[in-house]
């Protein structure tokens, strides 16, 4: 690596920091881009910059959006009486792809994770409680991932929400064990949603 010109070494280094990319892939991507037309590379770099400049979190549901409130929170046809709680924006997208869910979302931006030192205060939990105080819902669906962190988060929230008198449900466990919501196919996810059960 010592022999690469500085800009090349810098880009290789930047790619390597991305998840799932090792040194060889980082080199391949860098040399691939070097061969592409300048126009195409400029488009990529402006897309990278825009994602940080123009994308914000919705102040109601914490989904990523370019307008606040986001399109789902602003849509009057979406049922505000049913809230689906997910870990990450990706999980929200997976749920939307099923086309089955007509309520609204709350994104926690994470899950309880002792190994990473992440507790309830690091998630959008207080915001969820405030939201339910402002506009009571009939049902909260806990759609955190089926791994141990997601399950702990669901159990924690169920206990917290029970005193509010809202019906709290958990999506069914038919998902691949330890898998993420975002990788579940639409049929599986629809089934998990339909098979949800009351918890707590």
């Amino acid at each position, binding site marked *: 690596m010592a022999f690469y010109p500085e800009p090349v070494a810098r880009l290789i280094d930047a790619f390597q920091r991305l998840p799932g990319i*090792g*040194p*060889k*892939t980082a080199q391949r991507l860098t040399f691939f881009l070097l061969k592409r037309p300048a126009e195409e590379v400029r488009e990529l770099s402006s897309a990278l910059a825009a994602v940080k400049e123009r994308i914000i979190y919705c102040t109601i549901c914490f989904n990523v959006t370019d307008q606040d409130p986001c399109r789902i929170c602003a849509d009057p046809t979406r049922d505000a009486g049913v809230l689906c709680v997910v870990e990450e924006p990706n999980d929200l997208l997976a749920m939307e792809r099923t086309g089955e869910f007509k309520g609204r979302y709350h994104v926690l931006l994470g899950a*309880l*994770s*002792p*190994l990473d*030192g992440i*507790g*309830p205060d690091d998630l959008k939990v207080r915001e969820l409680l405030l939201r339910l105080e402002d506009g009571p819902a009939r049902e909260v669906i806990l759609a955190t991932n089926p*791994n*141990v*962190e997601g*399950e*702990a*988060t*669901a*159990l*924690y929230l169920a*206990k917290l929400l029970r005193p509010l008198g809202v019906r709290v449900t958990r999506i069914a466990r038919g998902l691949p*064990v*330890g898998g993420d919501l975002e990788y579940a196919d639409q049929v599986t996810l629809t089934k998990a949603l339909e098979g949800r059960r009351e918890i707590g």
Partner: protein
Amino acid sequence: MQIGCLVLRDFRNYQTLSYRPTGRLNVLTGRNAQGKTNLLEGLGVLLTGRSFRTSRLADLPSWGAEATMLGGDLIHTEGTRTVRRTIQRLEDGTWQSAGDLCPWARAIVFGWQDLAILNGPPAARRGFIDGFAARLFPGHLPALLRYRQILARRNRLLQAAGAEGRLAPWDEQLAATGMELIDRRRRAVAALSTELARVYPALAGERHKVAVAYRTSLGEATEPAALLAALERRRAEEARRRLTLVGPHRDDLAIELNGTDTRTFGSRGEQRLLALALRMAEVLPVTEAAGTAPVLLLDDALSELDSVVGGNVLREIHSAEQVFLTSPEPLAVNGAARWIVESGEVSAA
């Protein structure tokens, strides 16, 4: 079921191997360090995807190789399946294992390390009963892995200052998954005891009373609530020791021969025979659960046994389906296919 053929490439001390065993008893002899145990390990990896000797994938490829390949035919009454597995080093330096798994393929392995079931720490007995339970119940291994994850996270909270208030969701999961494990272990122990009572006397050639019991601090309880209550009772002590003190990870097996705990009684031959009997006692329950007989991989199973007992073992083995039995000494066994293992090659004797 049977293994019709095994193909190895860069596996341990086998550069290339193509081996067609018989569907009954295969006796493999050869001097020390020629590849007998490695061959059994290869057969085991083909059947189950995992090594019985190591959990480190990097140990399996021949020294200096970046990948190893295992392949072969698994024969079942309903047809033959060709399976393949590749274990290779990825760009980021980690090792990956990918390949086919047959839902009905099972291996029962006996090796010198099984003595630890009798004279080793409780973890060795838990490992034994979990391995057996995993061969009986497909859900056991995933639940065990999940339990370990929950336990690691709960222990981390116990080690963090002021995190007691965050234990609840982990307690609840620990109790649910923990009881699931305990339930399957108890059923595994029950199936084992019945068979062991027949197998051990048959191998020893004398009447003996053998008993296996599951030991848990939870007594006879079957509900997660009991485990939750036990956690509650130990809360102060757990906070002090910063460790989870109740659950299946603290349980043990009591194995008794003629009323004596096997950890304390003497003869090495007796211990080896009892360890072998525990493995042989797995065969019938595993056959019933999988719907087909498992393959037996018996590493040096006759050593330290006298000739009478050795003869009884061979008789019992003959009633199994496919068996691989290794020995550093030549063995004269009627009706067995005999193979010689030398420097990573297998030839008919």
